[in-house]
């Protein structure tokens, strides 16, 4: 492993690939900015995954064990089971939209900045 900061032997294969020294990955990984990005990502996706999974599990469990409740009619032939099912569609669309907004506003700018620093020198050249 060489000790200078110039890129190691480039592993350019099929293009698009930038050789970045592994030590620089370690230093980026340990940087405060990257830690913030990691936290920002995990703080959103982990709780949201747990939430939609529990919400879906609740729906399946009610479908299995609370059939009386699910069959209660709300309007005409439309019952709670149908509304609950349609709500799963609504929640899926909403979470997807919410995530993309969060990622675009909060994650992308930080990720782009770190990538820019890594790929365009940032002390390397």
């Amino acid at each position, binding site marked *: 492993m060489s000790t200078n900061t110039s890129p190691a032997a480039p592993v350019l294969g*099929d*293009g*698009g*690939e*930038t*050789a*970045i020294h*592994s*030590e620089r*990955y*370690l230093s*980026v*990984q*340990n940087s405060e900015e*990257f830690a913030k990005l*990691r936290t920002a990502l*995990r703080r*959103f*996706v982990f709780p*949201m*995954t747990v939430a*939609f*999974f529990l919400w*879906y*599990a609740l*729906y*399946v*469990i009610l*479908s*299995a*064990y609370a*059939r009386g409740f*699910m*069959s209660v*009619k709300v*309007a*005409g*032939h*439309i*019952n709670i*089971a*149908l509304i609950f*099912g349609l709500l*799963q*569609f609504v929640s*899926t*669309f909403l*979470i*997807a939209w919410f*995530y*993309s907004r969060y*990622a*675009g506003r909060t994650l*992308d700018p930080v*990720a*782009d900045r*770190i*990538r820019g620093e*890594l*790929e365009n020198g940032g002390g390397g050249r």
Partner: protein
Amino acid sequence: MRTLLAAAASNGTARTLTIILFLLFVAATLAITVWASRQTKTATDFYAGGRSFSGFQNGMAIGGDYMSAASFLGIAGMIALYGYDGFLYSIGFLVAWLVALMLVAELLRNSGKYTMADVLAFRMRQRPVRTAAAVSTITVSIFYLLAQMVGAGALVALLLGIREGTTFLGMDADTAKVATIILVGALMIIYVTVGGMKGTTYVQIVKAFLLMGGALLMTVLVLAHYKFNLSALLGDAAAASGKGEQFLGPGLRYGVEVPGDALQTFYNKVDLLSLGIALVLGTAGLPHILIRFYTVPTAKAARKSVLWAIGIIGVFYLFTLALGFGAAALVGSQAIIEQDKAGNTAAPQLAQALGTDLLGGEVGGAALLAIIAAVAFATILAVVAGLTLASSSSLAHDFYASVIKDGQATEQQEVRVARISAFVIGAVSIVLAIYAQNLNVAFLVALAFAVAASGNLPAILYSLFWPRFNTSGALWAIYGGLISAVVLVFFSPVVSGSSSAMFPNHDWQWFPLSNPGIISIPLGFLCGWIGTLLSREKNAEKYAELEVRALTGAGAH
């Protein structure tokens, strides 16, 4: 008598029209494939379509890759015969995309190159991990492929109306089945070997538009018939089903309550939970879905493609709700079961009924039937092509280039092997499908999801998020999840010991559930954890590279 004759004549018209439309689709897709082959020069072109697709294009292609005949015909049929439970099934298929969106798509796009194993093996010892990933990829893809091809064979006989004792072009129903399996297999081999990822992607995009168009048309016709009153449609469907209001709630197909048998009732309900978990966690571990994320230039485009996919897939399942209940109300379960016990012809039969009522008599019925039947064929072709591509990519890139050649293969060698692999996998699938054509293999789709959720997903998530994860953990997760899912299903009632089993005349069943997920998924995660702790291997540098690349896109291919 006259109506019977007219029906027979219109069936003949529909059959001819179906074949014409199908041939048009085949001709168009073959032309695209040949065009795509001229644009396919590098390995990146072959495996990842040159990473040149937009988020929207890839979103449509994901929809085309994902919405199989099992979704279109199967879910519509399940709703038509069992009501609400078919809808319940489709919801798992949709919600699953949130796992792919938030946890997998972008990180995989940033850190991988061509296959699922690129991410799994990133910081591990290449050979064992890539071998495991290839084994799992090929197992999942072949299970899925077999279910689609056997289904295709049965469908063609039904859609072309070849019944027992009648012939078509000199073929009886069984010969027509075999001929269809061979035709579908040959076409998928051509799409993949000639067109690579580019050709396959365009086939899937075209299919997605056809499928959405066909489903939209029928949905509008069904709703128009009921003056856009959903409650009236549901009421009619419930009345025609002969099961009354029960038809509109859960419990006719999944989690069935068996009077006087508390144990079986318990198993049935746990089985429903088990299925639900596998559906939601399986999607993000399906190799043919994962490799689609490599066809776009950036992680942002990968995110956009999943958003489009969620949109198109969600809307499609809402359409199937109308189609299924529409078929129950307007065709009736009696008429559907007469054609196919599993209800797979409910959607085409609904098309015929709608066309006859709303679009101008017998000719209208024949025309709409033909359109929907041709869409169903297109659906099958696009899905099997995606599966063949995923397994041949893994065989060439993971097994040949990394395991056999130890990373020393040239691009040209790799792509040549990928093409040969596609041919071999296609040929093997044709033979297996012909052998299995009279077996009930519908469970293989659920099994593919279970294996993907039990083996692939734990390995992917640990790889991306757990610094300590290592080679031993990856092997334990993949093999542990894969083997437990397959073994449990082998001893389950879908393989033996019940009248609807794959081998109804044998009985080695001891595992009570049809869906192994509730056991095998936690087991896969547990295996990955134990396996990791059993080994001291830890590569902090490589994990730093993986994590930084995955989260920022630095150095992405």
